[in-house]
């Protein structure tokens, strides 16, 4: 497993943007969870592609302690309809475009994890771009990164490599501490 995130930088509560090829995006998600969990962090995964149940299975296969991962799932509710949040495991929101609910879910989840070493993983900016314009994505990420810094929490944003235009890329680069080209 490649060391995607520098443990020392993670310890400094830094924020990362990881760029990966479309085919390896899922694997990079799993790699980050494995590494961050092994470092004793609790990870909040905001998933916009796969339902949390699938990701949970994939994480479980790699030996990740599933108690160290909770989810904000933007996929399941739109398919199933009524679903109930499972405390400590998953919070559902109805669409990746619902940034208000996403913000509330993240804030509540972070409150629950107060005192723990927490990292938040957004998978992925590229999928969110289907639902949101690049200026709105930029504003949202600016808001999230500010919040993470204020709360002294690490964060990882996943995106498809070469999938962000130069303007958005330059903006995101200024919001995060490190850009990692994971291939």
């Amino acid at each position: 497993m490649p060391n995607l995130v520098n443990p020392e930088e993670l310890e400094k509560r830094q924020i990362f943007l990881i760029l990966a090829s479309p085919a390896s995006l899922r694997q990079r998600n799993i790699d980050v969870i494995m590494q961050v969990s092994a470092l004793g962090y609790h990870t909040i995964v905001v998933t916009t592609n796969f339902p949390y149940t699938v990701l949970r299975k994939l994480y479980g296969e790699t030996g990740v302690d599933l108690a160290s991962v909770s989810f904000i799932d933007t996929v399941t509710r739109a398919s199933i309809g009524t679903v109930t949040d499972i405390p400590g495991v998953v919070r559902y929101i109805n669409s990746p475009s619902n940034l208000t609910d996403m913000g509330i879910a993240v804030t509540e989840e972070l409150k629950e994890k107060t005192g723990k070493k927490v990292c938040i993983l957004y998978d992925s900016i590229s999928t969110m771009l289907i639902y949101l314009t690049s200026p709105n994505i930029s504003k949202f990420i600016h808001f999230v990164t500010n919040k993470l810094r204020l709360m002294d929490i690490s964060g990882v944003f996943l995106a498809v490599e070469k999938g962000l235009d130069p303007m958005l890329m330059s903006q995101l680069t200024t919001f995060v501490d490190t850009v990692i080209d994971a291939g």
Partner: protein
Amino acid sequence: MVVNTHTDQCGDADAGLFENALVMIAVLDKRGKIIAWNHAAETITGYTRDTVIGTTTIWRRLYPDQQYRNSVTGRIMEILSHKKYFENLETTIRTKSGDSRIILWNTKEIVQDGKTHAIAVGMDVTSQREADAFRESIIDNANVLIAVLDSQGYIIIWNRAAESITGYPRNEVIGKRDIWKHLYPDAEYRRTITRRITGIIAEHRYFENLETTIVTKTGEQRIISWNTQQIGFHGAVREIAIGRDITEQRQAEEALVAYMTEMAMRIKQPVGIIRDNIQEVVNLTRAGKITTDEMIMILESQARNATQITVNVQEFQKAIIEKNTQIPDAYREFLNG
């Protein structure tokens, strides 16, 4: 009769010259009475010498409007108050047929045989002035900024488009050379532009399609594409600067690039994501790692993504139509559909 009079006044040798001159010549006695009126004067004014010689009324006929006549008289009196002649005085006369002609007058006082006479020479400059006015009209009505500078850099022409684009009226610009400081208020930018212009002119003596950003009087930024040319004018050098306001064009181009990149980000890449997600569903299903319900959820999610991409495409099409007015109607309808 007049020729005789003229001969009396000027001598035989000059009679032909007087009569065949292409300019109107009138000789007046001390009291303003016409004593000679040449052929060109007859042709230009339409008044024959028979009706003019020995009278002083011709001026009332040539300037029938009293107010205008008074203003001409006033100007002449003012000139004659400090010298005995006037040069290049331009007036508009009304001919016998009612046409207007522009005459450029020069006078000279002569004393002959102890008598004082005034010779008034009038050149019909109507065609020249009309041509000038036409040229000025073209310059003034051109929809490009036209500025003409003398060899010292002082502005001598500043057309209507220049006023409209920059916001600076000609009375604030003509005869001055500080307009560039107003148009380029940022000293560093001004220096950069000046260096570029100096470099180009040193090499080519003119420049083409040089783009600069000016700041108008109201503080708005406009992008101007400049072309210049040096011309010689009566031995002096003039610099003609023609500026085309390409702000809207550049904005439309930038908008198009922005839309195209946004489209690439929000359509091309997401289609790739959908493809990879579906492929992953296939792989996970084959490996028996996901349930049918999970498979359906992922596929539904990809269908929603695809639906959203269709909406995005329609939004882009509408945005492009709004931004680009040049799109033909048939294509506009298609993109709107």
